[in-house]
């Protein structure tokens, strides 16, 4: 045994030394670093580059398969063809025009649906009476598939913009409502006790405790709502539309233009990705009080 060079050893009570027990079985020396030796690490490409490799390989195989003729262009166009078609569609203004129309529908749907869902959740979350009035009805309607409402909406509103936007509004309002309501209800009752103790007024209680407390749940609802909004848009635009990305796709299908269909799909995916990024950014800003964000 080695003696440690302790700077100060004080012992208050001198204990009578008892014989130390011996370790049974062998001892092992754990691997450690020599002084000055660098910490070992395996050579790695930057993480972003490594992850891209798989994607590059996928497109390479697709391109080769199309060039060689394994995949007929009516079934699936080659990536290079899709790229040129995409550029052409943007240059001619066809894609940008369709994009603008689709984006407007989604923005209207979110713009009405999010406040609607959030507002109803507040009404239901703040009082027993509100809950009885709102929550039962919403829980009942929640299980009606939104897409199934399409015939009814067309019957009521025709095949114009209103029917499409209404469907998105409904699809958006539900996840926002459900998440916000449950967030309001799961606010720590201790905070309400605190509000009683410090004498907060009802409006101050909503501003200082209910709204910030429900914000994380609300944002989860918004995140789900944006995904639903794009999904319903695709559906609504393919049923009966004379404009928008969905219409572009349906028309391309009629003319066996698989390249245009793929361009539209990629556009949808990019839009979904962008809206997801926006919501995440919003979350990061608004929930900066949460650690590790």
């Amino acid at each position, binding site marked *: 045994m080695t003696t440690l060079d302790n700077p100060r050893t004080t012992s208050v009570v001198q204990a009578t030394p008892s014989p130390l027990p011996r370790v049974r079985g062998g001892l092992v020396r754990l691997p450690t670093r020599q002084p000055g030796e660098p910490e070992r690490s395996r050579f790695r490409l930057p993480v972003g580059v490594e992850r891209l490799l798989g994607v590059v390989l996928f497109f390479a195989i697709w391109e080769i398969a199309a060039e060689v003729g394994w995949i007929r262009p009516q079934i699936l166009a080659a990536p290079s063809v899709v790229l040129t078609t995409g550029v052409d569609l943007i240059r001619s203004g066809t894609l940008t025009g369709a994009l603008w129309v689709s984006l407007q529908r989604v923005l209207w749907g979110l713009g009405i649906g999010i406040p609607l869902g959030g507002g109803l959740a507040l009404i239901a979350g703040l009082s027993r009476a509100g809950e009885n009035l709102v929550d039962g009805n919403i829980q009942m309607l929640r299980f009606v598939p939104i897409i199934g409402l399409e015939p009814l909406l067309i019957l009521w509103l025709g095949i114009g913009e209103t029917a499409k936007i209404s469907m998105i509004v409904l699809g958006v309002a539900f996840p926002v409502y459900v998440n916000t309501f449950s967030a309001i209800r799961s606010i720590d009752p201790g*905070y309400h006790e605190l509000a009683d103790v410090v004498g*907060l007024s009802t409006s101050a209680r909503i501003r200082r405790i209910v709204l910030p407390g429900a914000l994380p749940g609300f944002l989860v609802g918004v995140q789900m709502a944006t995904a639903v909004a794009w999904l319903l848009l695709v559906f609504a635009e393919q049923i009966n539309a004379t404009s928008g990305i969905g219409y572009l796709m349906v028309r391309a299908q009629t003319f066996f233009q698989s390249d245009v269909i793929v361009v539209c799909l990629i556009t949808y995916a990019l839009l979904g990705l962008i809206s997801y990024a926006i919501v995440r950014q919003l979350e990061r800003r608004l929930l900066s*009080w949460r650690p590790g964000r």
Partner: protein
Amino acid sequence: MATGTLSAGPTTSDVPVNDRGHAVAVAGMRRTFGDRRVITGLDFEIAPGQFVALVGRSGSGKSTVLRALAGLDAGAEGEIVVPERRSVVFQDPRLLPWARVLDNVTLGQGGKEATARGLEALGEVGLEGHERDWPKTLSGGEAQRVALARALVRQPELLLLDEPFGALDALTRIKMHALVEQLCARHHPAVLLVTHDVDEAVLLADRVLVLTDGNVSLDLDVRLANPRQRGDPEFIELRTLLLSELGVDETAEGRHEEHPSP
């Protein structure tokens, strides 16, 4: 002194008991939860500026008393008269995680001078410079000091402390004891400290009430010179007395708790 009556039950007179010079007056307080009678006809007063510790075994109803005095329990019977300006420090700091430290301290405080008073209170608990911090970045002791500042900023005439040091580590607790002692000496609120720690009670309080079976079984004045030392023979004597009242005999074999059978 401005007072508020919390009782919803029949009042015997229109004059609050506080006009007799008490900060807190509890008369005939009863509280039942279902069939369980937790508080059975409790009477006690606290003088202005007096530091009272309420000790009792777990389940003795001491927190029930505090919650009633805080105005958090409308289900208690009897008459409870307390100052209008009162603050509570809970066992957990209970800071709003989405509000910065200063906003937590001034919660519910309006007016232009609220910020200035909040900063002053933070300074008093030794947290100047932390006003823009998020509560989640504070240590347990720091968070509880913020809770203390939030209680102080209201300039309470009654400070209710519900086992405020219970969740802290032993070293932090010692520092908090000193801080509370110092703050009470400066601001002189009446204090009700609910605790199960007899040492803490003897260390801080002017008077210790022992709650047994829903009533005060011992009302003990603590007349020790400050600063109090845990090793002091008089300290140990009071401590032993309180512990035996609580049914703990430290001299017993193996120093285990004795639970007298009911």
